[in-house]
């Protein structure tokens, strides 16, 4: 089953709202968790792990560190789930 980017975006936004105490309106594609929203590194890790668990994927830390904006993070996640089954 292929997973559409829009589905990933929804999962990412839901986890961000749940774990990072953010509002959906703040979570635009070009927003930076760190620079714009002041999210610290521990919070980002918990958030990324929740996304991993939700989608049954593994996101290497160095690849997460390379994503500056929500949109590029969603691209990374989508690349990991593309072609793979949702758990």
């Amino acid at each position, binding site marked *: 089953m292929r997973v559409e980017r829009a589905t990933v975006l929804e999962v990412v936004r839901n986890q961000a709202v749940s774990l990072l105490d953010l509002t959906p309106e703040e979570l635009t594609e070009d927003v930076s968790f760190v620079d714009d929203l002041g999210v610290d*590194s*521990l919070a980002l*890790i*918990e958030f990324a*792990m*929740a996304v991993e668990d939700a989608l049954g994927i593994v996101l290497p*830390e*160095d690849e997460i*560190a390379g994503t500056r904006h929500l949109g590029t993070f969603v691209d990374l996640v989508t690349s990991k789930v593309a072609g793979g089954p949702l758990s």
Partner: protein
Amino acid sequence: MSLLAGRRVVVTGVLTEASLASAVVRLALAEGAEVLLTSPVCRAHRITSRVAPRLGVAEPVLELDVTLQQDLDALADAVREAGWDRVDGVVHALGYLPEGFEGTTFAGTPWALASQVFEVTAWSLAAVAHALDPLLVRGSAVVGLTQDSSQVWGDPDWLQVSHAALAATARSLARELGPRGVRVNLVACGPVATLLARALPGHTSLVEEYDVRAPLGWDATSDTSSGAIAKAAVMLLSSWFPATTGEVITVDGGATAVGVR
């Protein structure tokens, strides 16, 4: 041969799967150990609890903030409640950079910040060993992860100073626990791209310097490097260093043993 068959090891410092302590846990489990993890409450504890099953640790993560005396006081009982009547190994893999550390000069760092770094990085080795002291037995081993502190690497900071203090703490602890047959040793690690390390200013240049210097090479992003550190830690936890205590084993590809290549 299983180096740690039947040995029960308490491991601090697992945060993410890339943590050095996580590499130690993976190898310790593969070598037959039983493992309990500790983590401070709040977000770090939630993260460690997510990581634990990924590492193969089924037991609940014990709550331990080494800056809270009540957590230290409760640790031995928490281990007993997990069903253990002894602890054969303790892994100390703690370091801390408090908020506000960035942007201060070395000499300008206030004691309020420097003392937090010292407390978590160095003092806590003795504090955790003391907390678990009722469960330590002849042959138990305390192993800490540190970094080279014989010289200043890059910009000076209080984490480096605290690692020098950690080595001195390990020696003093080795003297205190030695008569009971408990060993205390450190593994001085080359830089590895953990969460804490990446937060350090100058991490990238430090990594490059190690790789240039190290006769064996040193890749901070490689599982081979964290695996090499884990092997040293597991050997020190095992019965294969029965007459070694108060020592620092360096695992860095030889970088600190040589000058500029």
